[in-house]
């Protein structure tokens, strides 16, 4: 019997997220509740500019890295 793997992406090499058709970087950030000001995103190793978060597609199986540059009081 063949088992279909559910569509999935991995965020920061740890957190698994269900993938869906048409998913964008912004969708990933929303799902993770990442709304920090100093954020750098790459999808499968390629960096995505902030202006393109809402349009940049995230493919099934992608490794998405979301780096928060730490600041704090």
């Amino acid at each position, binding site marked *: 019997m063949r088992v279909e793997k559910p569509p999935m992406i991995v965020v920061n090499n740890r957190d698994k997220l269900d993938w869906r058709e048409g998913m964008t970087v912004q969708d990933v950030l929303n799902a993770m*509740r990442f709304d920090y000001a100093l954020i750098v995103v790459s999808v499968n190793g390629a960096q995505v500019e902030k202006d393109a978060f809402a349009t940049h597609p995230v493919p099934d199986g992608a490794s998405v890295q979301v780096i928060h540059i*730490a600041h704090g009081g």
Partner: protein
Amino acid sequence: MAQINVIIDGKTAAVAAGSFLLPAIRSLGIEIPTLCFHKDLTPTGMCRLCVVEVESRGKTRLVTSCNYPVREEIAVRTGTPAVAKHREILAEMYLGRWPNVPIVKEVAAKCGVNSSRFRSAITDENPHACILCGHCVRACDEFIQERILDFAGRGIKRHLTMPYGEVDPRCVGCTSCAYVCPTGAIEVNDDLNHPVDPQMIRDHGMKINAEMATLDDKQCCMRQVGTANIVGVMDRYDLLPVHNYRFGSHPDTPRIDMNALKKRLTQGVSDGCWKGCSMACAKTVDNFELQTGPYRGQKVCVDGPEYETAAACSNMGCFDLDFVFEFNFYCDTYAIDTISAGTTIAFVMECFEAGVIDKTYSGGLELRFGACADVLELLHRMARGEGFGADVGKGVRYLKEKWAREGRADPAYLQDIGMEVKGLEYSEYVSKESLAQQAGYAMAVKGPQHDEAWLIFMDMVNNQIPSFTDKAYALYYFPLWRTWFGLQGLCKIVWNDVVPADNKKHPPQAAAKIPDHVRNYFKFFEGMTGKPLDEKMMLAQSARAHNLQRLICRMLGKGAREDDMPPYRAVGPVTKEEYESRAERYDKQLRDLIGFDPAGKTTEEKMQALRKFRMGQYNKVVDAAYKARGWDENGVPTIERLKELGMDLPELVAIVKGP
């Protein structure tokens, strides 16, 4: 941001909507002469040399490209006869007034003008004459937010001045004006502190000024609200201490977050923490009428609040800005640290609610979470050294020991929820989900303040330091780096509360160090002392101080492994209520990380398994961090490490060996 196509001299360029035309033209390699444009300052179009022809909806007109915002598709022509004629006449006029200023000559030559018909009584032969470009006026305003310099007079009498033509005492000699002056009209007298290379310091300091002027509004909003900008962020990431660090968020946080605070801050400028600082993150609330205490009814100016102060209030469950300001004012007035006070009172509140103490014991104060009025009354009693207030003023460790002695509660419970290490109260971050932050706090030689290692995001959210070795390196590098710049008198805030736009060019782990800003600090050191510095030398310098601090800790009886052990509240959920509030997260960790099936287990059983795992992890990270620091398994610097650092003095070796 939407992109708009602009046709420039026949070539198409995609331009972000609302951005100015000049950078887009220059990005195509087309030269445009300017005298008043500066890449880090708001463009004004004053010199009018950057004019180009813009065609839009069938109409053509001349516009100054530096401050022309692109809002629709347009055609731009940069070299038409009309444009050339306009520039030529202007250039000739500039050259007539300032014939010997190199930048004017250079720009005029680009416009095809090498001599002028317009020499007159106002011609200034000085090669360093002020050409009224306004760079200095804008730098004073936008870099330093001071507005000390401005223009006065009209027409040919227009000139640069300070108010009333006198030297303004508010000018601290930051030299931003001189730095951006294209002619050398403003001279700098470099006799302060006698740095070896003041220009080197200025070159790197001005980079920070430019970043603050151009990036801060899009990043941390430090100029608008200071460090309190992260109150809401911490809440959303479940990191804001609430009810003595039991929880990381609360529905009432919007009442004290950045947006609420913005409405109450009355001065958008620096309050003098360090005058001349382009970040100016210290904020002020004016005309605040006090409701309690010796100054009740008086209107005062309140400094702050900083993040830690606001979060100390959320930790006490006091989500009320009027309370935050009053608490902040009286802590400052009484010389009480807001963090230690907030953390201690939060502990007292939890003990009150748990029945460890009652209203009779507290001198009539109903110290439940959120009891703003009672907290203020307690603060006044602490300052007066009166009754229960005098006890609370002695801090968490004193209270834990006293209440244990009096048999008021199980000492182990008090230890678990009393947030102090080495006798110092925790600063205001929930560290439960970040192993590196737990160790960063509890291993800090000065006690769990956040200055030595603030690794929460790097560890918990970014997962940038997944292995024990990675965490140990972070616990080696960041405490040493932060100790180092603290020793130099350099502020932490401009290291990582603004980040260069191109910081992302570095791989993630390097990016977290903000390499360009580390380099700025090295250059400040070199400019001051004349000695070049690199990472290795910085770490060696800092390790000497850090290890000496550790030895002093040991002399004071607080420098052993047991002194680096956190209260369990800093590591995991102490109470059932805490566990159950985040049960999904903890159950998942039991399943995924420990292989413990939570199904059918009681909360107590699950808590026990989680605690065993987490404390095991904590001890592993401490082992790895000690090793990275050159300390033995008890947290004592080894004699080999002291030798390596040139610190093997007999007195210090004796401390290592112990009595």
